[in-house]
């Protein structure tokens, strides 16, 4: 009976440690990198071109600068046959494009909100002027 009382907390501790260990192992695993093939770069280049020709380029110039630079590096890595580097850069560029797009979206929304607030302000002023004419 006494032995039972001693072994139960120990077993619970072991289970907790096991979970923590597994989590650590998962965390320690290298980040998932995209798989690439011969066309990946060209597809990426097309994506970048599309972004450059969109409003995103104006809304997120810094990101576009990084993207352009990284694209050059990816091209170089591809030429050098450095698949891992090319994969990492491809992943980063794709992520950068997402960031740039989001930034452009936020900029647009900010602008839209500013305009909407201006509109609201003007509407309120106009309403006040109207209400002042009412008895």
């Amino acid at each position, binding site marked *: 009976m006494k032995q039972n009382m001693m072994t139960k907390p120990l077993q619970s501790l072991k289970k907790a440690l096991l979970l923590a260990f597994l989590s650590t192992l998962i965390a*320690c695993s290298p*980040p998932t990198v995209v798989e690439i093939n011969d066309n990946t770069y060209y597809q990426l280049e097309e994506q970048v071109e599309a972004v450059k020709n969109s409003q995103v380029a104006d809304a997120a110039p810094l990101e576009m600068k990084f993207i352009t630079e990284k694209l050059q590096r990816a091209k170089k890595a591809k030429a050098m046959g450095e698949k891992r580097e090319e994969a990492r850069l491809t992943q*980063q560029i794709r*992520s950068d494009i997402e960031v740039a797009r*989001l930034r452009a979206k*936020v900029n647009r929304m900010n602008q839209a*909100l500013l305009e909407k607030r201006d509109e*609201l302000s003007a509407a309120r002023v106009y*309403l006040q002027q*109207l209400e002042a004419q009412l008895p």
Partner: protein
Amino acid sequence: MNKMVIVMLLTLFVSYLSAKENLELESLRIEFDNFITEQKYKPYAKKEKAQAKSAIEALYNQRGEVKNHAVYMARNHLKKAKLAAEAGYLDQALKETEAHLQTVNMKTLKAEAQLARMEADRAQLLIKLHAEEAERARQEKQNALELANQKASEAEMTQAELEAAQAYAKAQEKVAALAKEEADLAFAEIEALRMQLESLVAKETDAGLMMTLGDFVFDSGSANLKQAAVDNFDRVMQFISGYPGRKIRIEGHTDSTGSEDLNQKLSQKRADAVKQLLIKNGIEAERINAVGQGESHPVATNNTEAGKAKNRRVEIILLK
């Protein structure tokens, strides 16, 4: 079993130590913690936040070049989470602003409608006032016109009446003047007649004393004695009265104008008229003999008006 536990504990400890050493990761972690505790972003980008969290947590066990890439990706995840949260927040703010704007616009529409109604009412009132004003002006104009017409009519009437009165007065004046003239003439005539009668003188003739009455004592072409002659017959009566015992012969004479027969009759009638006047003045009818001589005994020429006037006469003869 105990060895295994020890290995696991060691692994955990080592990973803890290596994480502690990485300040960049800590910075990223703090940035993430600050981000997720920010109230305004709490409701948004939950998926992106979880991805960023996983990416950041995974960094603690990375090394070398792989770690640099993982850090970059984790930072990008954090950026994306932040941007997504910002986008969510902005979207919500836009929706709320839009809702407010709609509310204000609705109020504006209502206010505009109310003002439009007021404006319409005011316009209607103005139209009514203008119409009333126009009607009043028309009425005043009408009244003024009627008054002017009335005044003009009155003026015309007054003028007409005045002119009529003036004409009447003139006519009356004329009548009066004529009457006066007539009266004057009559008076003059009477006076002349009276003077003529008073100036009558008797002449001694073969037949006796004779007094001649000119035709002025008769109305023209008639045997009627003029009233003035009747009234002023005193001189004749004095003449006759001076010889009360004598017979009286009255002869009527005319000029040659007209037929002889007519003149005969006229002379007789005139002699008779004088006879009647004498009788009326108290002379006995038996004493009087009235004879019409016509144009047979002229005393002057009938070729002149003066001669004719002398021939038209009545002679009163007191016979011897």
